[in-house]
């Protein structure tokens, strides 16, 4: 995990004092609200329906147990004793007082955390695959590159006032995309060229929101040393030519579409030609230095324990289900990747109490080298668990509520805070998630349905990623009433696609039955090996329409 040196510590400390100064001037009336707005947003501070909301950065999802304990203490001391894991691998506090925020930032800085650029029209937290470094099919560990991007984008003087927010994601796996890179402003796929040289395939102009798009490739191969100069060229073209007259047309995807991907790529290449050999070009020494922060933990030489596990699974059905759904293969013999699910029915997806944060810290210390990763599906990963400890871990986390064996199933819902907390929302999203979870409470039935991404957003801003849900739900406002529009067939994975709208929207109380009908159409039509998305792609949207609107 990255560790601050004296430079990082100094910059973090200076940032806290700067924000303290800005907050003082805002409270004293020296800064008009519209002047303070971008300053507080670039520090993750929204003013929300009930209180300010502070979004704390978790760079590419990595947290240490020490940081988790600090977060627990902060939620207790400054908030109501709980926090929320977001769909950008960050953490949100829902009730801090504005005047306390500088002190919260100071406490965060002590554990090498911050809230820089978690909102506002700037470069946001870079995200990546939560299994980075632990899976066996990755081209290279993406985290050193994420940290390189984090540092480059932090307080970048040229790009603090972009036309709109800007999100970068990096994926390293050859066969899967858990980082949803094709729906980001920039998506970077680690690849090797024919000579074995490491680099990136660059997608630009994907995104969700009002105009969802899958990001086209604008460069097939970018050598790793050119990462920052190329990003700088993309951002400069966007900063100069992105639309600023209409907030809804200001994302880079609109510019890429207007210029065509090829036209956009040509502009970027022309800009890049001027700066590619500048000192911002990465040196091999620098890359190697960043890599030293993400070396393997001290794995022990232990064999796989297939037989013991088989016996334990045979004797305990709940454990068997948990292994089947929440545990993934690890690159090291004798180890496994465990996902702690934060999706227990009755708890808003991603919400954790201060005590639970400490419990996560405890199990991380005991079972996974003191580190966790937050996922964009709002769960938490222990990436390096010994297989012979799995049963013990499962017994420990079951009473904590983290062992619900529903990972990637219909009830592993991605859900934004919605109208319960967020002032942008048109409709509540958490009660919809809960009603659907209650409707599908039979695990055997859930397993029979298989992997289904159900994503719920309370408004067009799409924090719940509804466009890329196999089943997407969008809250809409109809004459002051909350309604929900459904889309089908979206995906955020390698086969990225934007879902199609099913038809007219539904009242909240109808939602569980509507989802049940959609699932029924799948179950009635599927072939033996088809998952929900396969069947949808084969039969199209019409059979679903017919059943739901019959």
């Amino acid at each position, binding site marked *: 995990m990255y560790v601050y040196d004296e430079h990082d510590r100094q910059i973090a400390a200076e940032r806290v004092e700067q924000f303290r100064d800005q907050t003082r001037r805002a409270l004293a009336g020296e800064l008009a609200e519209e002047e303070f707005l971008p300053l507080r947003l670039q520090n993750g501070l929204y003013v929300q329906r009930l209180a300010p909301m502070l979004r704390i950065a978790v760079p590419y999802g990595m947290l240490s147990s020490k940081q988790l304990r600090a977060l627990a203490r902060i939620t207790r001391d400054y908030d109501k004793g709980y926090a929320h894991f977001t769909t950008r691998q960050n953490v949100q506090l829902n009730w801090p007082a504005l005047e306390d925020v500088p002190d919260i930032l100071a406490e965060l800085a002590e554990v090498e955390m911050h809230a820089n650029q978690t909102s506002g*029209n700037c470069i946001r937290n870079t995200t990546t695959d939560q299994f980075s470094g632990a899976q066996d099919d990755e081209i290279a560990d993406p985290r050193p590159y994420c940290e390189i991007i984090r540092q480059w984008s932090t307080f970048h003087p040229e790009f603090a006032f972009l036309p709109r927010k800007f999100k970068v994601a990096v994926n390293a796996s050859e066969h899967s995309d858990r980082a949803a890179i094709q729906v980001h402003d920039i998506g970077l796929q680690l690849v090797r060229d024919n000579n074995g040289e490491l680099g990136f395939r660059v997608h630009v102009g994907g995104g969700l929101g009002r105009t969802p798009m899958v990001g086209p490739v604008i460069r097939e191969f970018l050598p790793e040393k050119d990462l920052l100069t190329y990003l700088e060229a993309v951002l400069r073209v966007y900063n100069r030519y992105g639309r600023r007259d209409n907030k809804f047309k200001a994302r880079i995807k609109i510019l890429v579409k207007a210029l065509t991907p090829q036209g956009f790529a040509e502009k970027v290449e022309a800009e890049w030609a001027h700066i590619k050999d500048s000192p911002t070009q990465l040196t091999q020494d620098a890359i190697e230095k*960043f890599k030293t922060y993400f070396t393997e933990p001290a794995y022990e030489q232990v064999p796989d324990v297939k037989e013991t596990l088989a016996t334990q699974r045979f004797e305990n059905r709940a454990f068997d289900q948990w292994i089947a759904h929440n545990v993934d293969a690890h690159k090291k013999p004798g180890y496994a990747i465990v996902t702690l699910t934060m999706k227990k029915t009755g708890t808003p997806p991603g919400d954790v109490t201060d005590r639970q944060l400490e419990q996560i810290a405890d199990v991380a210390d005991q079972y996974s080298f003191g580190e966790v990763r937050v996922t964009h599906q709002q769960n938490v990963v222990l990436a390096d668990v010994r297989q012979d400890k799995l049963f013990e871990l499962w017994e420990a986390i079951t009473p904590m509520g983290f062992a619900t064996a529903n990972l990637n199933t219909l009830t592993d819902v991605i859900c934004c805070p919605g109208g319960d907390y967020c002032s942008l929302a048109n409709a509540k999203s958490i009660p919809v998630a809960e009603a659907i979870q209650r409707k599908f409470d039979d695990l055997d039935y859930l397993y029979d349905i298989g992997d289904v991404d159900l994503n719920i957003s309370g408004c067009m801003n799409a924090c719940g990623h509804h466009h890329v849900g196999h089943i997407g739900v969008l809250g809409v406002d109809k004459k002051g009433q909350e309604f929900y529009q459904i889309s089908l067939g979206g995906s955020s994975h390698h086969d990225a696609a934007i879902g199609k709208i099913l038809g007219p929207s539904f009242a909240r109380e109808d939602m569980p039955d509507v989802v049940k009908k959609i699932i029924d159409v799948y179950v009635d039509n599927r072939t033996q090996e088809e998952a929900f998305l396969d069947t949808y792609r084969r039969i199209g949207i019409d059979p679903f329409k017919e059943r739901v609107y019959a």
Partner: protein
Amino acid sequence: MPEVITHDGAILNDEWIVVERPAEGESLDIPSRPALIPADLWLAGKEHFLGRQDIGVWFDSHQEPEMLEGLVNELSVIAVNFPKFADGRGYSIARLLRERLGYENELRAIGDVLLDQLQFMKRCGFDRFVLRADKNAEEAARCLNFFTQGYQAATDTDIPLFRRRAS
């Protein structure tokens, strides 16, 4: 007397005025005192200004600094207008003037220039700032110096932190 702030926060009297773009069909009225005129109009009527060291130019945020390629150092002052502080195009214009076009003389930020943007402007090559009239120039020095270093290369330093660390 209007004030202009230097890169280290000192406050100077400002002699320069900004000449707005004339309305359609009207001609540019050139004052006999130090004045900044729209960059494209200077370019179009360059021969009229020969010998006038007290004529500089200003760019609006949608304009392209490349139009003055090869000519920038004929000017002793170039200004970049921030029509709204949230319009960040001026930062790119400044870097291009300095780093691409090699401009070496005074570069000033004008328009909706607030205190908390000064640090970014300075890093992008501005060395003079005309604060919006309601802002307190006495605070500029503090706001210019919140940070002792940055992570990236920019106009102020071409050595990014990752290269400084390596040595």
